[in-house]
């Protein structure tokens, strides 16, 4: 019996040597088949157990089965090793050039026009103060654009608006392209009972074209009608708006008496600013920049809209959306807004996931702080003015903003007051 024992030991070492020598899974498999396959050497040995006496079987069974288990384990272990080697070998051939650029995701490549972003910003700011958004048609009647707004027929005030007209109709009337969004105020007052709080953003048109004037531009007007709204409230709303829009804690505004046919008293508003190489900073400096026109709604306008001027009162204001966009984001030339130059749009436009001010920009330094962890940089980004919001100006176009003494962004900042002479 010791024969069998030593035979098995030799047998085992031979097979184990073959397992170790197997260079790949195929070789290992043939070793396995040779040993453990149906006709394998160990299988043959196991078969001999049947012909043994119970005593022999009792003695040899465990020996042969032990051999089988040892070989199986060795094969399994070798198999794992070979598998790992094969995987490593395959992976070694599977390299890619990870420096190849990936495509920019569409949501990063797409842009919203700055006018869209600014429109959303001011909608959010005024919504917070309880204003709804009203809109009206671009093609208007003379009545809504002028007459009901207390522009006397043939009065020079009408000449201040270089108006686009449509051909005269058989009844002598002629339609026009609205020169301001004030007709929307008229439509609102005619169709809604006070109290009224709306802003009216939209496209407006005047026959004029140079660096600071385009025949089409955008205005937002505001209108409040109730029983006690007065000039002091108007001042407060405009100050709150300027602080929120330009994202500064303090703003100094100057209200100058002026003239618009549809308000009485009428005021023009300048905002204090400082201009340096990075753009315009608000809330500091020595210059005054005209940004809007406003006033108490003229009693005649209220009457024209069927509102009793002794019971109700209110105020209105108007400013150029393109203008305030230029001031906040630093574009130099109004005409570029409508040229659809991809370079300009990519530079000054906004990504679709950029949240408008009030909802978005104020919160941004917080995550910047977490991301960057650099206090100095965060402080810089929190500064009022340009670092956070404005891209640097595009090169190549001259800036002409300064007129006399104070900054002036030309007459479409607001309701026009400039004389045609």
């Amino acid at each position, binding site marked *: 019996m010791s024969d069998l024992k030593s035979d098995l030991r030799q047998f085992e070492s031979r097979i184990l040597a073959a397992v170790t020598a197997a260079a790949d899974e195929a070789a290992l498999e043939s070793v396995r088949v040779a040993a453990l396959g149906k006709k394998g050497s160990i299988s043959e040995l196991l078969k001999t157990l049947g012909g043994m006496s119970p005593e022999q079987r009792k003695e040899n069974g465990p020996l042969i089965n032990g051999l089988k288990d040892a070989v199986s384990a060795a094969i399994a272990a070798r198999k794992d090793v070979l598998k790992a080697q094969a995987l490593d070998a395959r992976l070694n051939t599977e390299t890619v050039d990870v420096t190849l650029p990936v495509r920019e995701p569409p949501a990063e490549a797409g842009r919203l026009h700055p006018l869209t972003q600014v429109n959303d910003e001011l909608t959010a700011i005024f919504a917070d103060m309880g204003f709804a958004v009203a809109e009206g048609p671009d093609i208007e009647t003379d009545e809504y654009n002028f007459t009901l707004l207390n522009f006397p027929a043939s009065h020079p005030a009408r000449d201040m608006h270089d108006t*686009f007209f449509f051909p005269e109709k058989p009844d002598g009337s002629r339609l026009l392209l609205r020169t301001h969004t004030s007709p929307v105020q008229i439509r609102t007052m005619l169709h809604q009972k006070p109290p009224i709080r709306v802003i009216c953003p939209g496209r407006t048109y005047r026959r004029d074209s140079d660096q600071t004037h385009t025949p089409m531009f955008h205005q937002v007007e505001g209108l409040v009608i109730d029983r006690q709204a007065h000039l002091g409230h108007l001042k407060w709303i405009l100050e709150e708006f300027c602080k929120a829009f330009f994202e500064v804690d303090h703003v100094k505004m100057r209200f100058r008496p002026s003239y618009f046919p549809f308000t009485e008293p009428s005021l023009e508003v300048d905002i204090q600013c400082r201009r340096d190489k990075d753009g315009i900073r608000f809330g500091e400096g020595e210059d005054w920049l005209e940004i809007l026109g406003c006033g108490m709604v003229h009693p005649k306008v209220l009457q024209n809209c069927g509102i009793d001027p002794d019971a109700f*009162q209110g105020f209105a204001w108007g400013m150029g959306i393109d203008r305030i966009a230029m001031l906040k984001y630093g574009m130099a030339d109004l005409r570029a807004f409508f040229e659809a130059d991809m370079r300009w749009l990519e530079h000054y436009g906004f990504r679709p996931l950029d949240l408008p001010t009030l909802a978005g920009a104020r919160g941004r330094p917080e995550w910047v702080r977490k991301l960057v962890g650099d206090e100095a940089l965060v402080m810089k980004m929190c500064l009022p003015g340009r670092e956070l919001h404005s891209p640097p100006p595009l090169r190549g176009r001259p800036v002409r903003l300064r007129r006399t003494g104070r900054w002036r962004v030309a007459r479409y900042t607001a309701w026009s007051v400039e004389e045609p002479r």
Partner: protein
Amino acid sequence: MKFTRAWLGEHLDTAASLEAIIDRLTMIGLEVERVEDKAKELGAFIIARVISAERHPNADRLRVCMVDTGTGAPVQVVCGAPNARAGMKGVFAPPGTHIPGTGLDLKIGKIRGVESRGMLCSPRELKLSEDHEGIIELPSDAPVGKKFADLIGLGDPVIEINLTPNRPDCAGVHGIARDLAAAGLGTFKNAPIDAVKGAFPCPVNVKLEFGATPSLCPGFALRLVRGVRNGPSPDWLQRRLVAIGLRPINALVDITNFVTYDRSRPLHVFDAAKVHGDLVVRRARAGENLVALDGRSYVLDETMCVIADVRGVESLSGIMGGAATGCSETTTDVLIESALWVPANIAETGRKHGIHSDARYRFERGVDPAFMVPGLELATKLVLELCGGSPSEIFVAGDARVEQKRIEFPLTELERLAGLNADPQEVRRVLGALGFSVAGQDTKLSISVPSWRPDIEGRADIVEEVVRILGVDRVPSTPFDRGENPRKPVLTQGQVRTRRAKRALAARGLVEAVTWSFIDRQSAELFGGGGPAIANPISAELTDMRPSLVPGLVAAAQHNADRGFGDVALFEVGQIFKGDRPQDQLTAAAAVRRGRSKSFGTGRHWSDHDGAADAFDVKGDALAVLAAAGAPMTAIQVVPGGPPWYHPGRSGTLQIGPHVLGHFGEIHPRALDALDAEGPAAAFELILERIPEPKQKPTRAKPSLELSPLQPIERDFAFAVDRGVKAADVVRAAQAADKSLVAEVAVFDIYEGEGIAPGKKSIAIAVRLQPREKTLTDAEIEAIATRIVDEVGKRTGGVLRA
């Protein structure tokens, strides 16, 4: 409106600085547009005497001058002017002076080896004229060492205000002075104007003849002055007119211009010798003609008011006089006219003729009716002073009486409209200083409006006057809370859709453009037309209201291509016009993809195959807009074909039943040609108003979610169909085979070529079955598969491929 500081001083006693005056003007509503201060600009230039002028040792044309500048030792100056000579007096600029004519700062320099410590200036260097022939020569009595600007009277700064049209009274220096005085900046002189006694009756009579038509001339005053000597007006008058940009002509004309600017009272002078018979003020007759003082001939009609004599029209009322009766140096008898006109009529006539005269400017805004006769007296006084002569009595036609406007004004109005708490005494003082007369008790004022303020009509105007003069700064900024109104959405459905559409398109890599609302006629007609044409367009390219956003976007894409950026994807969401009524204005969302601007990225990239943007890129864009706008996506059908500006075989129409929402596809090459653009390019356009409003639900809750525990089964089918068969029909047939079990059908392969008969194509679909109640048996799955094959065969003629 322009005037000078000294001119203002004749009506206002004030010690205020120029800066203080400018600042106050702006803050009371007389916005200062420009200040021209020659005294400041030329302040460094001084009067000097040339002691000697020797030839330059190294240059024949230059002279080395020793100059006495009034202080210290003589200064050596090298000068090239031919008239530089010993003994003359000129204008000296010391080193460091900014020379306005050259824009440079003067430095000490060496000219051909000789040092020069300053400059003797020519008129051009001082920007006084274009003359650069030689240096300025001053009279021999000019005081050496004194400022040059003072010598020639340039020490008077010119102020220009941007006058609002409601303030005709401030189109005269007198009115501006009154406002400044009311604002506490000095004392208003308001010197009385004495009547000039006439020596004889005015020999020329005036008739106002308007027949049955409304009068265009409320009043007309006329006076003759006999025996005048007309010639150049005196220096002070000429200087004043030149300073505000007017050309002195002769004394009589200069006087009318002076009174116009001094008192906002336009006047006209006729040479009496050239006027024949009496004057008639009437409407012009159609076809009548006038050669005006500007030398141009104007054709008149019945809407215009004229002054005529027996020969015909001699003057266009309130706008411009006629050349034939104008005053010249030879005039000896002068008729002075001071009249009142109907503002709207003057404005209309002026606009028709395109005449912007100082007279029109004031009459169309409304001059002071009470000043018609005093204005004539003032002019007479000046004529007598400057030209001598003997005045007639004044002939007045019409009724120049002034209606007194009265406004009842409770002081509480200030608080109500302006939030201003003002002392009643203060309010009375301000109104009084502005010329209002105030009666009534303490808090209930009865205010009469001065005749020169046509803009004051009601209580709000009085509030403005008080606030304007006291300063808006006095009105405290007052928090304005949102009140009791419930918080409602601030945007309408349409506004929400516009915003969502924009962000959805930008998220697909498109860049938003804002293009003109008006386009050229040809493009408008090509894209359906319907938008009205502008009667007075600004250019031939911007004539018609756009019926579609596509032409503007194609042009914008082409402009980018012309600049070297050919792969562009632009979109716009904005108004289009199908007519001129408010309901004809619609909101469209549109995009144009040009070149390699695919939906997954723009430009060539190593990771994808080359290819131009096609119908499927823009179809994706259109569907993204529809989804963002909340359209019922399952109800949307895609029908092949679109309007004629699309490729007939590569375009589609998006509709719900017969209701068209918009189109997409490659742009027709002929349309691109007509727009002068290169292709290929693809576009879509949807009209947001046409998307049905989602049904209003009682709550915001979403429908409950059912998650089946049973595993879905997926089966693939490939059908051979005719090439013309639409994939959508195959999909719909598969869906119809079992509406409850078929959860999803996806097209995963389209194939033509080997193995497929000519004229046929293979459409492969993957069908996902979602068991509802129990796991499906093989037999049940087989039965559904058979139904799918049958249904596709029945609807499309498709045959299951082996």
